[in-house]
């Protein structure tokens, strides 16, 4: 049911936690019954310099939070903005139908990060 990628990021996440005085902060999720992910990030010279998350939900969404953080750390916001939907989908590897909603979560995380960066004037 779970790929090695998802299992590794769920069982041994590298980015769970909080960022002190984050430049960016956002939360995504379904208020009725869905997954929730809160992300905090620091930005230096247009690059994500530090990032942490907390997630509540299914194993795949928790792993998705970790995969997202790993992929954007030390990456320029401009480069993150240039990712295509296909590239974003590929970041989660092969998924079962019941895990596929996490592609939407990952896409939303990208969009929220960039929207928050714009709001805060760091991009």
């Amino acid at each position, binding site marked *: *049911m*779970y790929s090695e990628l*998802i*299992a590794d990021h*769920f*069982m041994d*996440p590298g980015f*769970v936690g909080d960022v002190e005085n984050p430049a960016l902060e956002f939360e995504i*999720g379904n*208020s*009725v*019954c*869905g*997954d*929730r992910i809160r992300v905090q990030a620091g930005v230096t010279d247009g690059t994500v310099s530090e990032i942490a998350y*907390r*997630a*509540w*939900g*299914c*194993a795949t969404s*928790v792993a998705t939070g970790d995969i997202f953080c790993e992929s954007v750390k030390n990456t320029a916001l401009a480069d993150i903005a240039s990712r295509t939907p296909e590239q974003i989908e590929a970041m989660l590897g092969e998924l079962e139908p*019941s895990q596929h909603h996490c592609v939407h979560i990952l896409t939303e995380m990208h969009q929220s990060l960039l929207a928050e960066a714009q709001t805060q004037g760091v991009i």
Partner: protein
Amino acid sequence: MIEKMFSEAEKFGLKPLKMAISSPKALYDMSEEQLAEVKFILIKEAFSHHYESNKFYRNSCVEKGVSPDSINTFEDLATIPLVPIELYKSNDSHKLLSVGLNEVELEMRSTGTSGIPSVSRRCSDTVDNAVLGIYAMYREFFKISKGAGLYLCPSTEEIPEMGMIKALNMLAGLLDTHRFMVRNETFVPEDAVEQLAEWQNKFSRHIIGPPFLINRFIRYLKAANIKLKLDKGSYVITLGGWKRFSGEMLSRQEFNDECKEYLGVEEHQIRDIYALVESNVVAIDDEHGEKHVSPYVHFSVRDPKDLGREVAPGETGQLAILDPMARSTPGFMLTEDLVRLLPGTSASGRSGQRMQYVMRLPESKEFGCCAVNLDKRLDDLELEASSGTCPIVN
């Protein structure tokens, strides 16, 4: 004697736990002493499994000086370390797993008022146990094998991972037909009345759902002055919390009275189920309104001020569940529910524990399941709809 029977069965590859789960009637017919022996053997084996397989849990046990070697009598079961239910909501809930994530077959969840989902993960063996256990209990208490189910809740297609809906949906497999009446977060009571009329004289009609949604339906019937008359073999089956999103408690007696008046059923046809997404136990009302705990699961009711102390039957306390069916995570959990075990013997003659749900722990910020959010959403939508028709310009 029980131990000998189990070890003989094991010689033929039969699993004592699966035998017990499939045989609620035989267990309820046992003496209290025999049933205690069954529970002790199964729970001790489950404890040994999690102690051996789960590092996080084992470390907690070692800290408390409890190991499988220290569990030697039925009374010792009360010393088994308990997992507080809020750990299922934590973002590092992976530490609760006694099996690898790759062995997890099903994730189920429940979301109460906090909006933080409680996620329970079940391996194949646990799913087998839960499915066998739930169906065997449904058969024991409802004897349903036909009829039509009016589900006053959303379908599992709309919310596939919700434990409450999944458990209720399993009942549908025993019926001839069923309809989910909450679609896209909308409930139209007129449609429910129409559906019941369509099934009249074709099927025994059952109404199934969380108490709030059935209560919502009854409120409509009351307002429209409609009094239905369900069938002799009908059931009104509820599962879910009895506290509304507003904090208001729904009175069970008032609910029953209104079911009798507006749905045309007798008291023995109204059955509530107590269940938790984190556990595999179900406790179901019998025909006398007494809720029987799955006979292979032990409910240990604790003094909330001294959680190491069990309170006497009849006294209210905080519920701890010792569930041997859980193989992927320790089934030994401290809930946030206040319950009392009924003293004496059961009116139906069944052995084992009978419980009465009292309320959620007052200090618990969390209550309800997905139904409580749905109840709120339906209220919000009704408010929106009514404000849209308000003739005042704003």
